């Protein structure tokens, strides 16, 4: 049986307590939310914190408030999710599905039902980057001489590379970036609130801008503007379990006649962070979602997806089909347009 290594467990009841412990213990401590990412990693000895700070006893992190409508300029409006809000709660919340469909869809496509009952929004945002050379047991990694993300020197995905190419594999991260969400980070030194898109860095190892002494405590999603629509399309092998090998999150505001007034597009599963497709979003603006626009925009989205050979499927196929799947996300924006959010390819 795969077993956890020995660890010390702390159970703070206040964010401040947790932050103080994190400040005091330094990098040897890690925070635990749902356990669905940290514990497999600990069992494979990819992450070996001496102390685990369990957040589940902190009531504030479970709170959520939903005000989907109202004056979009009012900063209090919108959705605030405590970091420990479970993915299954987001998936099944009617109000979230109505106002931020891409978020509900993304949450519903994570892993499997029991894992969504355990996994949290904070944990999904902070998900460790993944790589087929890294998400392996200690013994397997010893067999390849380890890699630079843990205990080794080389990035086996690109042996000449000076950086790690592990992949951001969160479903909710590109969606929250596209929705213009913000996250609150708390430390012993205080709180700061940053755009979700700035939480991520383009490096497989240092993939979060969250400092080691910070705790992600909340996610804030602005209320949708009038005419705003969002969609998320996930490419994976099977109808459950699998991480995205491509995730396309789109938010757009449609004006009269279906003309797109503004858009933001993020791509997940192909880089070490969610990648913003700015050119594609600009291309959309001022146009209607006809076949030409969708084809051209999808091409631009696919252009920024730069997969490496370190996930499921072959690299060349993932490149070949990125535009086709991006087009599905765009088509899902069309009012009344039906598109399957989950193009399993089995």
């Amino acid at each position: 049986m795969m077993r956890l290594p020995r660890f010390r467990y702390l159970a703070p009841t206040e964010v401040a307590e947790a932050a103080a412990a994190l400040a005091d213990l330094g990098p040897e401590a890690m925070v635990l939310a749902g356990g669905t990412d940290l514990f497999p990693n600990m069992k494979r000895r990819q992450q070996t914190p001496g102390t685990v700070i369990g957040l589940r006893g902190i009531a504030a992190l479970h709170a959520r408030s939903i005000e989907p409508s109202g004056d979009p300029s009012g900063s209090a409006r919108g959705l605030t999710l405590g970091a420990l809000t479970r993915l299954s709660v987001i998936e099944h919340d009617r109000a979230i599905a109505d106002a931020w469909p891409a978020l509900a869809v993304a949450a519903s496509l994570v892993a499997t039902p029991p894992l969504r009952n355990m996994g949290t929004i904070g944990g999904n945002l902070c998900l460790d980057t993944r790589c087929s050379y890294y998400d392996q047991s200690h013994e397997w990694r010893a067999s390849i001489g380890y890699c630079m993300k843990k205990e080794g020197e080389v990035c086996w995905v690109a042996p000449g590379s000076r950086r790690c190419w592990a992949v951001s594999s969160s479903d909710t991260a590109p969606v929250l970036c596209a929705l213009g969400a913000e996250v609150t980070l708390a430390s012993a030194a205080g709180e700061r609130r940053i755009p979700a898109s700035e939480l991520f860095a383009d490096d497989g190892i240092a993939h979060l801008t969250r400092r080691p002494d910070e705790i992600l405590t909340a996610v804030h999603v602005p209320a949708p503007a009038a005419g705003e629509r969002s969609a998320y399309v996930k490419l994976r092998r099977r109808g459950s379990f699998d991480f995205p090998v491509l995730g396309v999150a789109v938010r757009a505001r449609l004006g009269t006649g279906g003309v797109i007034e503004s858009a933001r597009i993020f791509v997940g599963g192909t880089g070490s962070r969610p990648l913003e497709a700015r050119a594609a979003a600009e291309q959309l603006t001022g146009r209607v979602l006809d076949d030409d626009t969708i084809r051209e925009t999808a091409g631009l989205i696919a252009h920024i997806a730069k997969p490496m050979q370190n996930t499921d499927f072959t690299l060349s196929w993932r490149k070949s089909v990125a535009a086709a799947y991006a087009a599905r996300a765009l088509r899902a924006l069309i009012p009344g347009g039906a598109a399957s959010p989950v193009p399993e390819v089995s």
Partner: protein
Amino acid sequence: MAGPLVPLSAVRASPPRDKLRLAFTVNGEARDLVAESYKTLLEVLREDLGLTGTKHGCELGECGACAVLLDGELVLSCLVAAVECQGRSATTVEGLRDGPRLHPLQDAFADHGAAQCGYCTPGMLLAAKALLERTPEPSRDQIAEALSGQICRCTGYLQIFDAVAAAAQVMRGERAPAPKLPAIAGQRGSHGED
């Protein structure tokens, strides 16, 4: 709020090799035990409580065999630290039956061939129980979705879907449907014997 780490009321500091004192409820009964502090709920159930009905096929959250209900929610016991179960309530396959009476899901699994080798069965049963508690009349698609976190390598799933639908019928007070059988060529029309 900066400052030295102060003693915390709820801290459960366990130096390596220290044991964990765990009091929680399992299948409706209070349990109080001492176990290795690194153990997961799966390990405590199987090794410290002798409840080996909960199975394991990967211990990494990738197969679903170890699913149990924790405070009524379907979770994977291999990824729940035992230390986080303090004061909570777990239901395992051993807690499904009502005294001598099997749960309707257990009857249906037995009658519809849903348990072949039986190894995924406990996890499947609990996933199905979680489904039927919130969706008494599930569609085929809802059943497939609810069981999509449990791998079965024997059945091809369809008899499991049948069993869950049948149990739902029984739990709604309807008659138990007979198991669906393969057609026999020759007994269904033009395929005669020779």
